[in-house]
């Protein structure tokens, strides 16, 4: 099982998922300036090399983040934390990954320590989503506690401002995760989890789906383009998730993801069988 988690980490960092590749290929066709073409061509080449040679596409193999949906009747539940730790340590040596965990006080490099979000669910399956999250895009994250009066228009203003301010820093074309409602912490968590949805998929609530589309269109009209050097494609997709809010609050979490949107999923059944996909 440790081996399976390692393989899922390897899949995430070496193979950019098909939905992302397809979207980048479409962007390449759409762009018509030499600079935008230069960047998208490099991106598509890097993706090919990563998959063929099984090496990390981006050298920033990120803060390796795990979202665990833990079925309470799965017999392996008690081992999962240890398995994630040991698989990540092994992955760091074997793939290899860049050691990305730094002691805040001493600046010493500690290797790679995972961030794990747990959610207990009924049932006998454990589902793990792996999201190795690069620092350049993560640095553009934002939290705003808007007033209810500002509402969705306020969200739009905030997101556009933030995208403009960040320009080329988060490695556009980006994917945006936006969490609206809940509390300060939940808004950001929803935003990050929203990134796990497939590209092109719209929210099942038609009103939120339209909001996603409007935002995507507006962001792509800014002209920031691939790597912030100008072009039509600034974002590949926008994902919005919502949760009930406090009467006084309208929290908004915004999480940026770079074009190298690395993700992998695995599921452990009650008899220990593992399935890995992207």
């Amino acid at each position, binding site marked *: 099982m440790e081996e399976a988690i390692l393989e899922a980490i390897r899949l995430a960092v070496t193979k950019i998922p098909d939905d992302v590749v397809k979207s980048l290929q479409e962007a390449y066709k759409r762009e018509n300036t030499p*600079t935008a073409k230069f960047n998208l061509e490099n991106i598509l080449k890097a993706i090919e090399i990563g998959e063929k040679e099984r090496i*990390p596409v981006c050298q920033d193999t990120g803060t390796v983040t795990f979202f665990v949906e833990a079925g309470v009747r799965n017999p392996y539940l008690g081992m999962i934390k240890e398995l994630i730790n040991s698989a990540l340590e092994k992955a760091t040596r074997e793939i290899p990954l860049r050691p990305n965990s730094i002691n805040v006080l001493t600046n010493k*490099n500690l290797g790679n320590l995972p961030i794990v979000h747990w959610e207990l669910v009924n049932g006998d399956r454990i589902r793990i989503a792996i999201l190795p999250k690069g620092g350049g895009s993560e640095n553009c994250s934002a939290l705003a506690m808007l007033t209810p009066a500002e509402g969705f228009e306020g969200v739009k203003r905030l997101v556009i401002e933030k995208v403009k301010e960040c320009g080329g820093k988060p490695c556009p074309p980006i994917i945006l995760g936006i969490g609206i409602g809940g509390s300060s912490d939940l808004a950001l968590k929803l935003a990050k989890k929203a990134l796990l949805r497939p590209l092109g998929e719209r929210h099942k609530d038609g009103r939120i789906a339209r909001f996603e589309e409007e935002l995507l269109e507006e962001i792509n009209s800014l002209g*920031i383009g691939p790597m912030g050097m100008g072009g039509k494609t600034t974002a590949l997709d926008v994902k919005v998730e919502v949760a009930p809010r406090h009467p006084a609050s309208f929290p908004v979490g915004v999480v940026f993801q770079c074009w190298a949107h690395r993700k992998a999923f695995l599921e452990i059944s009650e008899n220990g069988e593992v399935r890995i996909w992207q």
Partner: protein
Amino acid sequence: MAVELTTPLSEREILKLRAGDVVYLSGVIYTARDLAHMKIIKEGAPFDPRGAVIYHSGPVVRKKENFEIVSAGPTTSARMNKYLDKILDMGVKGIIGKGGMQPEPFGKYRAVYFAFTGGAGSLAAKSIRRVVEVYWLEELGIPEAVWVLDVKDFPLIVGIDAFGNSLYSNHR
């Protein structure tokens, strides 16, 4: 315009470059990011900065008999804005990174900002022939150490030229 250049860079060479030009860079370059910049400013560079090219990058490295660079794309250069004047004043003539920097110092000190595509680390590694040397590895760790890299035909775009013209200025 596509130009082939070899490090160290001379002022004469870089004054010919304009924002948007494609450059194939060969020779020795030095990686440095946040902690290495702090240390360079405090203690001086562990290499001759005159005409040097600094690469904002923290590579993935495999250690066999020698060090091997597995993946090495650029990191966000804007974090190094606060060191830029001092670095260029030391004589550094080129910086490779992503996302752009303040353009004014490049005009003032006659230096060039080269952009490589962020995230394309596996492709960038193809232009790296070998690791010549590494400084401060023990103290700073793999991503933050100063890696001395011998590169061949590293494909770059001039993002900011030595007159302070920036491809980024219209988009920030």
